[in-house]
């Protein structure tokens, strides 16, 4: 069976033009998919999670009941993950955290959390990816390597496509890469500026000063870059974790946001974060409309409080402040610093995930689910905030993340009404 216009639930590009051939509930070929995406679609059945309690396989109902039992008794539970699921599951997760008086955080806090902090400080002059396609004659990739991390970004959105006002495609666009090392992307660039590691902030600040017309003693390449940025017709700065997770973090983002904002006194310029997980943006969105805050939220007082560095996953775990962790569609053991992730094996950790992961290995309860975007529908938000509906192409024996979370929420409520 052939599925067209399929949305790829892998990276923040959320390409929606894939074609899949499905036979016997397996994807047997893909069209338009990048290498990462193809590999994902063709290996969907590898490493599937099984319902486990204390490492022993059991029924999914038993797992859900066990999870309800654990989480209902928690003094301060953490709900975490949610970057690789759809928005209904995210909504339900917020409801659960609120109900429990716990904390909720998404993987934003370990990738583009600094971006959010930057935006809250400086504002953000941005656009959708199609605006870049249609208008940009200059694209600057800063601390991001789209060729490896977002393989179709350059061809679908930012470099080669011919848009409404960019009929010459690649020929009409300058590509600049600023990074601390050569990458596959920098090799494609018209100009590559290699920074000393940990000096992004200085470089961005210097560019701002140059754009204001200040004279400073700086690398001539940066001076040329400043001129290029000022004189383009429509520029875009696309930044990744090379900026957000290097020395300076949110301050680097502040400087980048300010640079782009200031450039708008001279030309049109926009800035976009190159977000990794396909729906990490959605987690920000859902959390924000339900609570006012995009990540690192605490409900222990009955209302939402915002605390990056306080209620964010790394901080809560490394300070050992939570007593139960519910991990949804994420693998913190593989992605968090050891000091934080090791605590997950000390407490009651529950994992809701379609696949086995390092976290499910250490979890007390594992609840397998139907994978969003493959076996469950729902909304995902592209890295630029464009919402796209994920498709269901395969059947799964398991309920979706959303369905499992609904059961847990209802279970907690039922448990309470029995108690009282």
């Amino acid at each position, binding site marked *: 069976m052939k599925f*067209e*216009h399929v*949305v790829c639930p892998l990276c923040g590009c959320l390409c*929606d*033009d894939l074609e899949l051939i499905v036979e016997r509930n397996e994807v047997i070929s893909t069209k338009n998919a990048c290498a990462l995406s193809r590999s994902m679609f063709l290996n969907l059945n590898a490493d599937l999670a099984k319902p486990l309690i204390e490492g022993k396989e059991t029924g999914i109902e038993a797992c859900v009941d066990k999870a309800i039992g654990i989480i209902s008794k928690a003094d301060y539970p953490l709900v975490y993950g949610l970057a690789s699921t759809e928005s209904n599951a995210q*909504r339900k997760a917020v*409801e659960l955290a*609120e109900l429990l008086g716990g904390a909720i955080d998404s993987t934003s806090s370990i990738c583009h959390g600094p971006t*959010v902090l930057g*935006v*809250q*400080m*400086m*504002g*953000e*002059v*941005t*656009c*959708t*990816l*199609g*605006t870049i*396609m*249609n*208008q940009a004659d200059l694209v600057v990739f800063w601390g991001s390597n789209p060729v490896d991390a977002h393989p179709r970004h350059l061809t*679908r959105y930012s470099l080669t496509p011919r*848009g*409404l*006002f960019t009929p010459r495609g690649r020929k009409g666009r300058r590509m600049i890469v600023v990074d601390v090392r050569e990458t596959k992307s920098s090799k494609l660039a018209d100009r590559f500026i290699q920074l000393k590691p940990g000096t992004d902030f200085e470089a961005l600040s210097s560019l701002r000063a140059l754009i204001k017309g200040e004279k400073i003693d700086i690398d001539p390449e940066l001076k040329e870059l400043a001129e290029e940025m000022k004189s383009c*017709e*429509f520029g875009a700065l696309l930044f990744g974790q090379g900026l957000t997770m290097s020395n300076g973090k949110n301050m680097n983002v502040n400087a980048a946001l300010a640079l782009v*904002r200031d450039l*708008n006194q001279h*030309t*049109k310029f*926009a800035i976009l974060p190159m977000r990794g997980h396909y729906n990490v943006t959605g987690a*920000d*969105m*859902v959390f*924000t*409309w*339900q*609570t*006012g*805050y*995009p990540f690192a939220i605490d*409900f222990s*007082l*009955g*209302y*939402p*409080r*915002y605390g990056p560095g306080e209620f964010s996953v790394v901080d809560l775990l490394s300070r050992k402040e939570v007593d139960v962790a519910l991990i949804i569609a994420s693998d913190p053991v593989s992605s968090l610093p050891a000091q934080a992730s090791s605590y997950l094996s000390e407490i009651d950790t529950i994992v809701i995930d379609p696949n086995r992961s390092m976290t499910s290995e250490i979890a007390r309860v594992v609840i397998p689910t139907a994978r969003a975007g493959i076996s469950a529908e729902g*909304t995902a*938000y592209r890295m630029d*905030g*464009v*919402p*796209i*509906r994920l498709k269901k192409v395969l059947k799964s024996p398991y309920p979706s993340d959303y369905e499992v979370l609904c059961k847990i929420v209802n279970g907690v409520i039922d448990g309470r009404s029995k108690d009282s």
Partner: protein
Amino acid sequence: MEDLKIVNGIVYDPLNGIDGERLDIHVSGGKIAERAKAQRVIDVKGMVVMPGGVDIHSHIAGPKINMGRRLRPENHRTAPVPKTDVTRAGVGGGLSSTFVTGYRYAAMGYTTVMEPAVPPLMARHAHEELNDIPMVDKGCYVLMGNNEYIISHIHELNKVENYVKWLLNAAKGYAIKAVNPCGSDNWKWGENVHGLGEKGVKFDATPKEMITTLSEVNKRLKLPHPLHLHTIDLGVPGNYETTLETLEMLKGKRAHLTHLQFNCYGGSSWKDLSSEAGGIAEKVNDSKITVDSGQVIFGDVTTMTADAPWQYRLYRLSGNKWVNNDVEVECGGGIVPYRYRKKNSVNATQWAIGLELLLMIEDPWRVYLSTDNPNGGSFTSYPYIIKLLMDKKFRKEELSTLHQNASSTSLPDIDREYTLGEIATITRGATAKSLGLKNKGHLGVGADADIAIYPLKEDIAKMFSKASYVIKDGDLVVGKGKIISEKYGKTFMLDFKEKVEPDPDVREFFKYYTVDIENYPVEMAYLPRYEAIKCG
């Protein structure tokens, strides 16, 4: 859902010509009924009974308000809203979270709210948020005034008509919205338009052509609500001339000019900005146009509009943080926090203009209450505005605390005081009528049983800020200003009768989008509770 009988109330139902009569209201099956087998009788002796409020223009859902929420944790921090046994937690500052938005509207007796500016590409997001707003029915208007397909087909009315129809259906929108037509598109190149006749930077289309085209299409499609227009030159000193020209251009046509306060400025700079509300009101009196006021409220607000060049200007003026988002081929938008100050001459004049419009436009069926939430202030300020309208003395007292420039408007000389019937008109009857929502804004038999019951209080602001009872679709949801039961309303969309297919041109145009045309239309999954209003 039990049947109800609401007895002994003093009823204001302007659409049915009822102005303060003591009447009993019967509710059955979620509708107003001739006679209900009332199992439950609510005695509202001495209270005022009105149809549920209908807000025609309030930014409550979608990418823009959510970006605003994300931008302003400092605003939320001071306004936490704890969960209760029946309600969800959230934040309730000027940018309330979705749940709190619903609760706050309901507590004031509002039961229908329209989100007025949705980029079609982001409509799915708007619907997701609308679905998380409890207590009220809702709908959204679709941004079209800077749509590059329309701009580039501006002289092909049939194509535009087909496209608009398809787009409204794709976005599951309720009305056509135009914001700074052609100006926001120019902002994609850092420019704006000045005057109705100015051409775009990249396109051969003028604001005038865009407005007349959309208004004509609106008419041809027989949409229930007229073109909802945020016209050009908003916020700029001296813009009243453009506004008069716009009104002249639309004379005899149906159109709704929104938050008109921002378009009534005389003078040539911020220093000599003055009110031209009188002339504008006269022109409105002399037309078929409807308007909403866009009252400003003193204090901290977050301005947000698809008028992106205006937001850039406001950023440069205020130095506050600024968000801009250009949406491919459709529109753009901006967000800037701002503080309206009593002692600021411009802000004080803006405050006065909003009231002048409401008081000088004679026909309450054609001027509606709004703050352009959250731009001029929060919707939670409506009771305060109602008090200003109903109480001349209070108006004067407030005026005396403002910068003197507010007193050089005609406001001090206006003696008009709104009656409760007129308040009911500008907050529900007329707005429902303008929206073409035949089951809203009145208490006639067959109407949705959305009922707001207010305690008759000395202080009018207090009276309207906490309804004694609110009934939504026949269920009692608010008691003494508190939510006693959470309930989700429906979303209004349009019913075009026949299937809507895009023109081949539109398919061709989608190469300028980064989303496949097949994935573009909002699926019905996003409207779990809906009512499709027939066009025509």
